[in-house]
């Protein structure tokens, strides 16, 4: 019979590291990734020799970028797997690293995401199928259409939707690893329209950066003498892909399905979540996914946002890192960075953006395709 992650031996996040997310620069991807890995190794208190396997997530670097980066950590000869899964590449790397530890194949595994955009367009091979407007509906317009649908369905305003970005920019302003670190007013967020009511500050900035986590089993933690008090358990891991159907919003339908799996595996209720990092590349996504997760009823996210329910210190801190809107979305690192942020929060080490006494968090990413990943972390 098929097993769930929660049926296998426990897996813990024991180290996290970042290279700050930033605009395109002259810094090589090798330096971006190594900075994150070295910080994660130091945070865990393990050496490179202790790492038995590595999963390297990237979507914009071409073929097999991992070995030219990781070789600078020393000669290990250990396995490297490259993972490309669009925006969810990093989340997929976490899942497969988790599976390797949970299965007992390895005790200590690295998941690292690194990316930088060296050309403006992203190459995707043609499927050979035509479409009426594929060259005219870019992601920001796809989400402008979903915003229009939501606004009419629930009787909220574009300004209400923009409050998501105001919240996340305020969180990003407290995060030294965020690409955008500036508090923004509603007037600033509503300026510079891009498509429909989506504005520039309601779109994620695609930049560059690195994020890494070290995962370990209890045996690995004991053998290496690591600090169990700072270890955060990955209580569940769920993944899926879009189902057939004429659905204009497959990401949300898929999110609802995957969240049910992740939350059931972790044996919690959605309303138990205290930290939520979602794929908020556009402001409307945060409320669509948060409602799909079940932290509130459909249509209730905006009124509760206005009451402060989703602020740090509120009912559930949503995107305390700043989310994709402010922390940024360098693609390969993003899902791993979410796990890093939740680990920091559950350890109580998040400083000015600490959500007090947080014990349970969920990381969620979708990727073009569509694919979806969710991980519940618990302390």
């Amino acid at each position: 019979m098929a097993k769930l992650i929660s049926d296998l031996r426990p897996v813990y996040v024991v180290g996290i590291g970042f290279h700050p997310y930033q605009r395109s620069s002259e810094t090589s991807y090798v330096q971006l990734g190594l900075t994150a890995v070295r910080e994660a190794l130091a945070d865990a208190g393990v050496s490179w020799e202790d790492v038995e396997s590595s999963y390297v997530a990237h979507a914009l670097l071409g073929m097999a970028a991992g070995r030219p980066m990781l070789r600078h950590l020393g000669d290990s000869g250990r396995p490297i797997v490259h993972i490309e899964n669009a925006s969810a590449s990093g989340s997929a790397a976490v899942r497969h690293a988790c599976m390797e530890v949970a299965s007992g194949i390895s005790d200590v595994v690295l998941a690292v995401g690194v990316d930088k955009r060296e050309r403006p367009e992203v190459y995707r091979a043609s499927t050979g199928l035509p479409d009426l407007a594929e060259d005219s509906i870019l992601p920001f317009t796809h989400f402008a259409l979903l915003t229009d649908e939501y606004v009419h369905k629930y009787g909220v305003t574009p300004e209400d939707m923009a409050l998501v970005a105001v919240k996340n920019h305020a969180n990003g302003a407290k995060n030294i690893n965020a690409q955008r670190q500036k508090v923004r007013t509603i007037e600033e967020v509503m300026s510079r329209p891009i498509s429909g009511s989506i504005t520039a500050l309601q779109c994620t900035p695609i930049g560059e950066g690195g994020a890494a986590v070290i995962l370990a089993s209890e045996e690995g933690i004991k053998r290496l003498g690591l600090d169990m008090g700072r270890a955060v358990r990955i209580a569940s891991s769920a993944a899926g892909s879009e189902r057939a159907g004429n659905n204009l919003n497959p990401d949300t339908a898929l999110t609802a399905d995957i969240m049910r799996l992740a939350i059931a595996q972790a044996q919690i209720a959605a309303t138990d979540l205290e930290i939520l990092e979602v794929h908020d590349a556009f402001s409307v996504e945060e409320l669509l996914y948060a409602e799909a997760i079940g932290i509130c009823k459909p249509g209730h996210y905006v009124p509760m946002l206005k009451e402060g329910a989703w602020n740090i210190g509120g009912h559930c801190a949503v995107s305390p890192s700043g989310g994709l809107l402010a922390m940024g979305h360098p693609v390969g690192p993003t899902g791993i960075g979410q796990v890093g942020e939740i680990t920091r929060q559950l350890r109580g080490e998040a400083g000015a953006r600490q959500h007090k006494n947080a014990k349970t968090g969920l990381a969620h990413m979708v990727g073009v395709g569509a694919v979806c990943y969710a991980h519940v972390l618990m302390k």
Partner: protein
Amino acid sequence: MTEEALALFQSEGTDQLPDNPALIGGGCDDCGYVFFPMQRYGCEKCGSTALRVKKLTGRGTLIASAFVHMPVGTPHEGPFWVGSIQTDDGAILRSILQVSEGAVLKPGTPMITKLVPETRPNHGAQDLRFMPAAD
């Protein structure tokens, strides 16, 4: 016009709506799934390769719309409208819209197809738009 563009629509309408261009969708003989555009790779629902052309009526209902202020990354030189539409046959698709200046589009607005002179490179002499039926 490329083969791909030819496969999307035809100037003739369906029996139900003869005066408006039909969309060239498909149907699965095994499970009945209706899709757009037509393809022969296999049914997304059941995997069958028993697929046939099904012409979809050029009439539907607007689900959502957006005015694209910045056409960056698109073949358009200026702002344009796009919309999500559910056709009377049940297919859901997205299209560039042709609407009057100053128009306010609301969900539920009846929409119909119309052919316009090509406005995008490599889409042939004509391209398809949806427009409010009342215009």
